[in-house]
């Protein structure tokens, strides 16, 4: 049975991590646990280091559009709090499975999860302007700052974003906020032809529309292109989007100004309780091929069309076929997996040897004892 630590201060977190590391123990860094299925199986932990007692929104600087958040704060709470000032943290991944919608800020950043707003506002790594971490030797270190523009020192925050906790524990982040557009409108067009889907999405991505989000979805034999607009004149611009969709041969372009449900469904498509979810990154122009691979595997897909990112929900026994079919034109990471299928599939695509060697060197420098989440990451890191 692993021992459980619930630090309430950064010093306690660092000391707990340091002590475990000194004893050659394996530590699992634990937020709300909504993404435990992700990454490699790793080594059974001796210590569970929970961040959920570090749950304060330390600052919300309304005038500066920044916030300072402890790692264990539920992301939903941040959204709620900044929304009261007409602002948003443009980081909108699915917050969990079913009823458990309590993904923490630290967990979302550590797994580099993202949602539809990544189209306009970037990923977690683009929104984090400063970070405080604990390393396995007990060091507490910060990088960046609280201002949105800053090039002093190395960007350690980017290194920890998406590192799956293998370099240390994220304790606190400073983030950039944006004004939430008071009005939004979403245009949705559909088709049963993956090529039409791909080309329509491409035309929209190349038009000067300032879309908040540009997504695609494919379920069964039909796909959709979804474009969200925000700010003054959003409904009128949605009409323009609908016209482009029509020209690109999408059917039934519909406009909704009550679009929360539409985007909630897109986010939910990135997770699966029953099947596997393969996240695929390709060139955006290969979208039709990714959709065909999905269809052939009997899966469904949601994706960020202009970024070349797709989340494919499929049966575990189809994962290898999709990977093979996409080959070198894609990099894939297996996220959700049903219990039992987990030990049969490698979650991470093989990496370029030199890049992997560099990653191992980084792991050795930050966590020489190998205490932090051992074995869950790329190449068994």
């Amino acid at each position, binding site marked *: 049975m692993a021992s459980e630590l619930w630090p309430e201060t950064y010093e306690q977190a660092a000391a707990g991590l340091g002590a475990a590391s000194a004893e050659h123990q394996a530590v699992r860094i634990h937020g709300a646990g909504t993404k435990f299925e992700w990454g490699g199986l790793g080594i059974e932990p001796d210590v569970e280091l929970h961040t959920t007692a570090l749950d304060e929104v330390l600052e919300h600087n309304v005038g500066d559009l920044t916030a300072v958040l402890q790692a264990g704060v539920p992301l939903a709470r941040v959204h709620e709090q900044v929304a009261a000032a007409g602002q948003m943290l443009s980081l909108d991944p699915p917050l969990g499975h079913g009823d458990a919608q309590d993904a923490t800020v630290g967990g979302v950043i550590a797994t580099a999860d993202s949602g539809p707003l990544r189209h306009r506002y970037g990923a977690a790594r683009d929104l984090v302007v400063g970070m405080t971490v604990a390393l396995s030797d007990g*060091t507490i270190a910060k990088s960046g700052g609280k201002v949105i*523009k800053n*090039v002093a*020192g190395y960007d*350690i925050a980017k290194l920890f974003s998406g590192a799956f906790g293998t370099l240390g524990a994220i304790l606190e982040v400073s983030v950039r906020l944006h004004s939430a557009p008071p009005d939004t409108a979403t245009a949705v067009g559909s088709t049963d032809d993956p090529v039409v889907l791909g080309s329509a999405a491409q035309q929209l991505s190349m038009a*000067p529309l300032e879309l908040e989000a540009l997504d695609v979805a494919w379920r069964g034999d039909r796909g959709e292109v979804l474009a969200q607009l925000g700010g003054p004149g959003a409904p009128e611009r949605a009409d323009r989007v609908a016209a482009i969709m029509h020209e690109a041969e999408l059917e039934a372009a519909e406009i909704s100004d009550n679009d929360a449900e539409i985007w909630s469904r897109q986010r939910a498509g990135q997770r699966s309780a029953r099947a596997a979810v393969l996240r695929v990154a390709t060139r955006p122009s290969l979208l039709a091929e990714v959709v065909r691979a999905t269809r052939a595997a009997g899966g469904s897909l949601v994706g960020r069309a202009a970024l070349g990112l797709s989340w494919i929900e499929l049966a575990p026994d189809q994962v290898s076929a999709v990977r093979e079919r996409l080959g070198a034109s894609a990099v894939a990471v297996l996220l959700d997996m049903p219990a039992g299928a987990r030990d049969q599939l490698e979650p991470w695509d093989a990496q370029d040897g030199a*890049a992997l060697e560099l990653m191992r060197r980084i792991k050795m420098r930050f966590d020489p004892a190998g205490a932090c989440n051992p074995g869950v990451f*790329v190449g068994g890191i």
Partner: protein
Amino acid sequence: MSNAGASELVARLEAICGAEHVLVHPHDLATYRSDGLAHLRETPVAAVLPDTAEQVQQVVQACFEAEVPWVARGSGTGLSGGALPISDGVLIVLARMRRILSVSLEDSEVVVEPGVTNLAVSRAVSPTHFYPPDPSSQIVCSIGGNVAENSGGAHCFKYGFTTNYVTGLEVVLTDGTMVELHRDAPGYDLLGAFVGSEGTLGVATKITLRVIPVPESVRTLIAFFDDTVAAGEAVSEIVSAGIVPGAIEMMDKLSIKASEEATGAGYRLDAGAALLVELDGPDDKCTARLQHVTDICSKAGSIDVRVAKSEAERALIWRARKAAFAAMGRLAPAYFVQDGVIPRTRLAEVLRQIDSLAAEYNLQVANVFHAGDGNLHPLICYDAGREGEAERAEELSGLIIKTCVDAGGSITGEHGVGVDKKAYMPSMFSEADLETFQRLRCAFDPHGLANPGKVMPTPRLCGEVPGPYREHPLERAGVAERF
């Protein structure tokens, strides 16, 4: 470095790049002795101008085998001394590598060599697309240098910085290994760690950039105010209204005076502050916001709001802003540029502090800044001909930076630390923070060969991890202590 060692290395570099692309004579090296931070100069052992990524790799490999440090240089426009050569090292000049390798608008992507200029990227994808980060040196500065410095520019409040646009890199590490880094590849975000590392982790030989559609409409206005406090108030109101201008730039009385004298752009000399606001995006959105911004400026007490009615008028408004640095020559023979950042809401207070420091030091400080993101560029004017004035100006410069840090800001927003600001690093970062930075540096460059002496306030070496202790040559010579 011994003479014999140097000539052996030079011979090897000549064999790699051709003798005409290896410069060793002081006369030939004169151009390369400094970057945009011109008062610091150093002559390297040699400057080498490779033409291909393979040549860069071989040059780096040769330096590795000879245990000779090196500095990579793009166009040399950097303002923090990041490309300042080292006297016992090699300068790798990437100016010949200026090929645009591919353009794919359907993937919003351009692949370039490091010596390609910033503006050339936008030109390569015009008229439909553009590359947003736009340092004011964009006509000459290189993308390789932009990657090293994580360059910003006037449009980054809305559009972001270099780091938000680099999606792929081919990098030569200091042992000569070539590595490909991609934005969404599984594993650590090595790409994110590399961008902005000021040439200390390796040298980029191929760069993939994201480009975006050119906005449908651009509307530019200039509003004059009695003082920077009122102009700052207008900035806060604009941002709180949820408006994100493409650019929002402020100039104070001194910089208006210098720029107006230099350009005759028609700026009001009786104004205490000028606020340039550029809105871009879909036409209807721009038009609505232009009216909103005009109203906000008037309400904040603007004495005069002028909207550019033509591209020529827009160019004129920008000309004065872009000339601001160069125009300072009219006020004083020399100046130091600072690059501090503050939370925007502290603007009025920090400007007051700068004014009172300037009065105390009896020096003129002009302020030009990217108002949206709180990035100040105080220009501290001095006359080196006057006894002790340069030293006083430098001291004042340091106090201004300290004021920014104390206000919760940063020592540098876009120019980089380089050698210029490394002494200020401890004002922002603790020893534990700096030691953590060093872990990253050591993972990439355990022998400390890439741009040593930059960024970190004191020289540090890398311990071997893991394995037996080995004495580093610099440590043996007593130059640096083990970290």
